[in-house]
Structures are given as structure tokens and as C-alpha cells.
């Protein structure tokens, strides 16, 4: 910037190029492996130049892991989670910020505390409740009135089962709360003076104003949902609802099969592409979403 430091600049470039190799190396490995034949991919030392079997490997991975429906399932899940989280975040934060009730603090803390309960530590009971959503309702009614109901709702192997348990959003609610707090009180006062009811204020003023927030949140939530692994893996036993991330695991070579790394890398390449495109193409929004949810 200000001074001439040719040697230091050289060092800086050297480090940055080394970093680039570190970051892009694995991507290049995945790509070249997915273009090679079975013999080429297992050659030692590994040949870092692309081979000729790219299309063949892509097709093999696509058919073997049944990636067509799986990618569609992942897309549906990711979009539903993305939209659901934005809707939930915007309305929850509205209820917290724009109304004066002592319960809003309780609500805020309840939402906040979910951050301390990641899926991994409550995985079995969450699975149980997804298999029988009305269990607490039945229990409540039975202890209160003594009546035994036969209400049942099984979420396993359904889109609602993929989406509902991961859709509650503490980070999104924070982001929206933060955003609402930065809006001037005069805006609300003016709207009220013009006779706007809360619902109209929310739809016609808050939502359009939050467009940048919404886009930022949408990018990180899409990536988050697409990359979900443990939950879809547990709750989809039928192939019809398998997501791409789970389908990819069927391509892992095991001891009893051929080491077809070329096909598994082709599969990995296909499933990692959608979030990568989002991050690369919408980088500005993605970075903004990530940085602003963590304040």
C-alpha cells in the first residue's frame, strides 16, 4: 500500500499461492479422480492429470446412488428449510421486538437455549418423537383428563420429517431481531399514525426493508440444509426420501467391492456442486449472512 516492500510482497504471494494449493488441491483431486478409469485412479503414484472417463463415471455414480431422486429430495428439503427458517425467524423476531409482553423474554430465552441442544445429543428421543409426534399431546391429555386418545402422526420417511425437526432457528431469529432493533422508532410511529395495523406494518414495511437480510440468511440456510447428514440418514429408511448426502455414502468403496474411487469422487463432485455454486456466485451475500448471524 504505502511503502515499497518487494521482498515481503514476494513472501506474501508465496504464502497465498501455497494456501491456494492447500484449498484447491482437494478439489482438483476430486475432479481428476472422477475423470479417470478404475486402473488409473488406483495407480500409485497418483496421476494428477484428468483422464477420459469423466462422463462414464458421472453416469455410473448417478445411477448407482440413484442420485436423480436424491438430488431432487435434497433440493426440496433445502428450499423448504430455507423458506421455513426465514418465515419463522421474521415472525418470531417481530413478536419479540414489536410487542410489550413479559412473556417475550421467556420466548426469546427458550429459542436461545435450543443452541445448547444440538441434534447429536438428543438424537434418539428426537427420532422417537418424529415417529410419534403426538406423544406429548396424548401424555398431556391423559394426565390432565384421564382420557386416552389414539392420535398418531408419524414423520419418518416424509418431507415434513426431513424439514420440521431442523427448521427451528435461533440464529435466524437473532439476525432478524438485530435488524428490527436497528430500525428507527419513528418508522413505527409514522406507520401507526397513518393507521397501519401491526400485520400491515410487518408485511408492507418490515419485510421489504429486510430484503438484504433475507437474501443473506437464505444463502447460509440453503447451504446448511443441503449439507445436513445425520438427521436425513436416521429418518429415511425408504429410498424415496433419501437425500443426496445420504445417497453419497452408498458409493464409499468397502473391503468386499472394487476400489472404485473414480465413481465415488464423481458422486461427491455432483452432490457438492449446488452449495458450492451458491457460495461462489453469491459470495457477498453468503459472507454477509455468516458474519451477521454471529454477533
Amino acid at each position, binding site marked *: 500500500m504505502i511503502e515499497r516492500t518487494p521482498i515481503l510482497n514476494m513472501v506474501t504471494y508465496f504464502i497465498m499461492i501455497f494456501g491456494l494449493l492447500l484449498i484447491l488441491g482437494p478439489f482438483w483431486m476430486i475432479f481428476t479422480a472422477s475423470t479417470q478409469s478404475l486402473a488409473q485412479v488406483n495407480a500409485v503414484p497418483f496421476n494428477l492429470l484428468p483422464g477420459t472417463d469423466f462422463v462414464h463415471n458421472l453416469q455410473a455414480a448417478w445411477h448407482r446412488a440413484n442420485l436423480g431422486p436424491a438430488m431432487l429430495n435434497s433440493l426440496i428439503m433445502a428450499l423448504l428449510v430455507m423458506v421455513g427458517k426465514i418465515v419463522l425467524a421474521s415472525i418470531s423476531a417481530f413478536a419479540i421486538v414489536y410487542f410489550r409482553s413479559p412473556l417475550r423474554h421467556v420466548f426469546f430465552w427458550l429459542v436461545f437455549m435450543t443452541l445448547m441442544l444440538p441434534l447429536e445429543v438428543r438424537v434418539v428421543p428426537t427420532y422417537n418423537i418424529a415417529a410419534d409426534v403426538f406423544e406429548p399431546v396424548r401424555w398431556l391429555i391423559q394426565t390432565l383428563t384421564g382420557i386416552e386418545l389414539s392420535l398418531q402422526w408419524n414423520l419418518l420417511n416424509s418431507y415434513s420429517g426431513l424439514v420440521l425437526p431442523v427448521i427451528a432457528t435461533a440464529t435466524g431469529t437473532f439476525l432478524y431481531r438485530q435488524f428490527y432493533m436497528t430500525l428507527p422508532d419513528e418508522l413505527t410511529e409514522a406507520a401507526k399514525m397513518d393507521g397501519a395495523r401491526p400485520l400491515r406494518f410487518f408485511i408492507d414495511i418490515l419485510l421489504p426493508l429486510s430484503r438484504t437480510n433475507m437474501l443473506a440468511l437464505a444463502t447460509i440456510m440453503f447451504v446448511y440444509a443441503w*449439507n445436513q447428514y445425520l438427521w436425513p440418514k436416521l429418518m429415511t429408511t425408504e429410498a424415496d426420501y433419501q437425500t443426496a448426502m445420504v445417497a453419497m455414502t452408498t458409493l464409499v468403496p468397502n473391503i468386499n467391492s472394487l476400489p472404485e474411487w473414480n465413481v*465415488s469422487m464423481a458422486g461427491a463432485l455432483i452432490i457438492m456442486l449446488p452449495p458450492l455454486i451458491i457460495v461462489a456466485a453469491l459470495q457477498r451475500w453468503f459472507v454477509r449472512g455468516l458474519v451477521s448471524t454471529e454477533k
Partner: protein
Amino acid sequence: MNKRAVFKSRWLPILFALPQLLLIFFFFYWPATSVLTWAFSLEPAFGGAGDRLFVGWDNFRDVFADREYWQSVALSLVFAFTATALSMFIAFVLAICVDRQLKGSGIFRFFYIWPYAIAAPAVGLAFRFIFAPESGLIAVVNTWSPDLWNPAKFGSHAMILVIICFAWKWIGYNFIFMTAGLQSIPRSLIEASSMDGSGPVRRAIDLQIPLLAPTLFFLLVLNLTESFVGPDTYGIVDLTTEGGPNGATNVMVYRIVSEAFQGLNYSGAASQSLILIGLIMVFTFIQFRFVERRVHYK
């Protein structure tokens, strides 16, 4: 903190809060109470009917008496601290370099963010191939001397593999926050210090690192939490080593899930889950103390 101008409505806030409230009740708090009750009780013998048996702290005593549990705690500690240190160090060096804003550094920044987009299981699968003992990039060392590198056989190699996966994936995230932190340092400070004759290295050490400290601390806590209990750790271990060989990468979070689903030891898994939840609370508390201090600092 509070809004001066608010709306009056009885039903609208309830209606707006209700969906999220129901979701967190059904999928977070109800399961959490199950974890709590399971941790302090036992399934009736032979899967028989009847209420669960309250056993107090017995389940915890069993967990603490288990040598494998302590092994998994030790593995988690090694994994979390090494992966965090490695990832943050690399990201930090790259962020400092990119922040010098030399010609073309925008291109580097563009690519350094990529690893964050890749799902942990995909990272695991890719690195499993790259570091496979019989094919891939590293396999060539085994032609020099057999079994120089074999994560399927040696526990330490397997641990190195999962650490590399996690560290690589989190470089992207750490880099994003560090560049954001560096950019928020006022330009005038940098210029003033260079007027006083400090070179880029001196400025990095005496100016940028101290001013970046809050960001670094935030990332430190977050990386540690994520590597202890995060879904990425589970996904990476599941796709690379599955906890093996011989339990050498059976970190706490992986152990809980596999014990609960394959071993069907609900009570043991529940008590281990409670311990992890306690850990997360400690981390969150530390995070909060620090956030508060930062607010005062500003």
C-alpha cells in the same frame, strides 16, 4: 434495548410466536426432557412393561467407570484442540496476507472461502481417498516403505486424518471472520502507524493481532464447541474412520450416536449427552462473558 414505539395486540404476537414455540417444544425440549429422565433411570428388564426404574447417579457412575469413555474424552480433547489450532493458524496467516491488498488478492480471497460450502461427509469421503493407504495422493509413501502411512491400521494416522478433514473444512469459516475482523480495523490507524515508520510485519504484530483479538477469541470458542459436539465432527468421522481403527477416533459425539443407535444403550448415551450439554453450556457462558466485554469495550 427496547423499542419505544410498539403495537398493541393480544393475539398477533401469540400467533407469530406459536409456530416456533411448538417446533422447539416438540423437537428440542420434549426430547431434552427424555434425555434427562433416561440419564437418571433404567429401562425395565427384558423390555418388560411398566415405568422406568429411577437409579439416581448410577448411569453416570457407570459411564465414569468405563475406561473407554475416558479414552473417548481424551481423543475428543486431542481432536478439538489440534484441529482448532491448525485451522485457525492457517486461516490467520492467509487472512493477514490477503489483507495486505496486493494486486490479485481478491482472487485468493474468492477461493479461500470454498471449503465452507462442502459438507463434512463429502470432505470426509474426499480426504479418505486422498489419504488412502493403497491409492490416492499419499499412497506413494507406502512404496518407499510398507505401512509408512495407513489410517485403516494405525490409530494415530486415523486421528491425523480426521483432524486434517476438520481443519481444512473450517479454514473457510475462520478465514471469513478473520478478514471481516481485519477489515473493520480503521484505515487511519494503519496509516498513522506507517507514518511512524512501522513496516507491514510490525503493523501485523503490534496492531492487527491485538485488534483482532476479540474475533480470534470468538473463533476459538466456536471452533472448540463445533469440534467437540458439532455435526461436522460426526459427519467426518462417519465417512472416514467410523470411530476406528480399534476405537482410535471414537470421539465423544460419535460415540454417543453410535452407542444410542447400534449399542441400544439409551441410558448410557443419555448420561453422556447430558455431560456434553453441560460442556456446551460452559462454552456458551464463556462466549457470553466475552461478548459482553466487547460491547463495553466499544
